[in-house]
């Protein structure tokens, strides 16, 4: 077992524990903290997968900006203590059914993975430096890049309009 695989196992265990913590926690702030832990551990896995730029963006955008927004809204609304409706759903069969359907989804994903994966040979290492990503972003993917900027502008305007007191 290589050192990299050992690190992966440790970080993957942290990621799954954090996701389960998010699923089971009764306090929205704790859930947000678990999600930040999950995203940070996924960033480490990106580093192991030869994707340093994506790892940096994951920490800066996801674990940073997006989760700060989440924590800000939870505290602004004072919604950290989840209500009784969240812990005890109105539909009695909802929780067992959703867990059953989740298991079915996982079995389906696992079946596809076992039958389809492993037939493709591992490709040679590629240049994944931020320089290479920047070059691809401003040549092949220039149009999606510009569309993304328009999308972000529309989101900013939309967020301001939605929260403005009329």
């Amino acid at each position: 077992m290589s050192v990299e695989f050992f690190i992966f196992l440790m970080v993957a265990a942290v990621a799954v524990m954090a996701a389960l913590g998010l699923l089971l926690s009764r306090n929205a702030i704790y859930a947000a903290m678990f999600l930040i832990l999950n995203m940070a551990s996924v960033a480490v896995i990106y580093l192991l997968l030869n994707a340093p730029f994506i790892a940096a963006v994951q920490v800066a955008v996801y674990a940073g900006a997006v989760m700060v927004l989440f924590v800000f809204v939870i505290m602004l609304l004072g919604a950290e203590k989840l209500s009784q409706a969240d812990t005890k759903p109105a539909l009695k069969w909802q929780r067992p059914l959703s867990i059953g359907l989740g298991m079915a989804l996982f079995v389906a994903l696992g079946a596809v993975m076992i039958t389809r994966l492993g037939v493709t040979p591992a490709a040679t290492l590629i240049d994944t430096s931020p320089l290479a990503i920047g070059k691809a972003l401003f040549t092949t993917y220039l149009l999606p890049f510009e569309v993304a900027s328009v999308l972000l502008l529309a989101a900013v305007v939309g967020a301001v309009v939605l929260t403005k007191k009329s």
Partner: protein
Amino acid sequence: MTSIEPVILLSAVLFTIGVVGVLTRRNALMIFMSVELMLNAANLAFVAFAQQWGNLDGQLFVFFIMAVAAAEVAVGLALIVAIFRTKRSTDVDELSQLKG
């Protein structure tokens, strides 16, 4: 990492936990965070396959998914704040006016 099978398995586990979260939680913020977990799992699969095929496009798609997710979070949280102003609650079960 030479083989990506464990990473895809982890991605499947995280995605399943996100789906179960969306199905079981009744608070809009918790549902939203579970959706973020699912997006994260999909990103992980994208990066793993980019590594497997030696293709940079997978990583670029993750970059665009992150941009879309950031926009989605901004608008979604604004919607939750607007709903909270009228309902004083973030439970999705409260939003049942359209029920016949």
